[in-house]
């Protein structure tokens, strides 16, 4: 149903155009919230849902979303989805809303979402937009989970703490503490440690890239048309 080249570009969101590892978008939730796996999972899922919702609605309304005012319109749509998500999280998972705090409303400022709305959703039919949002959102969620798991395991010496915030009471005894009682590694619990960890993960990704696909078919996509500020960690001409 979608042209193959659209499919092609969407799947790169998991690796070659990963929103965080390559485009360095959405760093503030990544650094602030991933102190535990449970927080990472909660925020990643809410972000995925918001991204999917806003991409689908932007795609549906794409004939209206052009011209000089397209940015405020996109921001309105994204903010609406974030508000709805926040209301629902507070209504049905209040302890999770308390644990994530300000970072649920701040999803509205996650540039990954605006970036996908602007570059993909408003230029493609709904199927492509939904696929792209799912892929990008999953890639973001996966990275949050990796960072969250590493920070929780080596920062606090536990894994699956607070999972009952998401899965309810059955998850209360999932907590796993492989190290002795008071083990903590303070730096990993703080945003600075998360930043260092992210740097190592980007380095690892770049190493795998140069090792697995030795420069045969790079460089990837062209930069976004009209964009004047593109920060990347990969090669984009």
């Amino acid at each position: 149903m979608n042209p193959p080249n659209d499919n092609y570009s969407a799947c790169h969101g998991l690796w070659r155009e990963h929103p965080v590892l390559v485009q360095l978008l959405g760093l503030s939730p990544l650094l602030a919230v991933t102190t535990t796996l449970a927080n990472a999972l909660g925020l990643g899922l809410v972000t995925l849902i918001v991204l999917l919702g806003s991409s689908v609605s932007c795609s549906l309304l794409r004939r209206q979303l052009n011209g000089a005012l397209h940015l405020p319109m996109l921001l309105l749509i994204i903010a609406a989805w974030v508000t709805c998500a926040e209301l629902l999280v507070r209504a049905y998972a209040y302890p999770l809303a308390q644990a994530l705090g300000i970072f649920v409303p701040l999803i509205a400022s996650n540039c990954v979402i605006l970036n996908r709305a602007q570059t993909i959703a408003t230029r493609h039919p709904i199927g492509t937009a939904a696929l792209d949002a799912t892929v990008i959102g999953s890639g973001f969620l996966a990275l949050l989970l990796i960072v969250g798991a590493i920070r929780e395991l080596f920062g606090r010496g536990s894994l699956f703490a607070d999972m009952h915030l998401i899965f309810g009471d059955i998850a209360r005894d999932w907590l796993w503490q492989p190290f002795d009682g008071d083990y903590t590694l303070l730096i990993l619990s703080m945003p600075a440690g998360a930043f260092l960890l992210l740097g190592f993960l980007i380095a690892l990704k770049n190493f795998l890239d140069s090792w697995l696909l030795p420069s045969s078919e790079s460089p990837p996509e062209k930069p976004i048309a009209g964009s004047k500020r593109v920060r990347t960690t990969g090669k984009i001409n």
Partner: protein
Amino acid sequence: MTAKTAPNRSQWLRLLGIALLIGTLVTTLEILTRERIVASQTSAALDYLRQVTGPDDQGAAITFENWPIPNRQLGLLGLSEGDEMHIALRAGQPIAAIVPSISNAGYGGAIQLLVGIDFTGRIIAVRVISHRETVGLGDKIEIAKSDWIEAFSKRSLSDPAAKYWAVKADGGIYDQFTGATITPRAVVNQVAATLQFFADERAALAARGTSQANPEAGE
């Protein structure tokens, strides 16, 4: 695309239309979820209240009422006008006051406490509602991280004497944490201030409880 030109009237109308559509949808959802959110907040608050009033050993149901805090005391408690305390009542008689209290002497900003005090002036329990202290150091004031906060249980303004209501570094009886003295000092001082507040107001609160309970008993 026309992104560079100034917006014309039809574009403004489209923006208005989208804003109205979204406003309607979000407002509808807000109305639909309002009741449930309030219920969730109340049950979370009640969980905290039960933690600071302790288990219900007498069998009679404990109810909670919100009572005003006199304006002259707001500064001592770090509160603002309109903030209320909770009174636990058993069979209409006040048995404990649960006083919100905020310290601004923390390392990372405000530390919000809930101090449960029975009507003899003894602390039942203290809980930290929210704080921004350093993860791994100052956050041992949370009951989830350490039982340090239980050191306040059964304490009162005269036990220990006023000069020992301090962390050990200041000559008092309460432990500080390795590498973090500011956080426990802020909590200890704020709990002491809350006890002082209760000592000042206890007579008035008890009188209000009696006058509230008696008309019901007479009917």
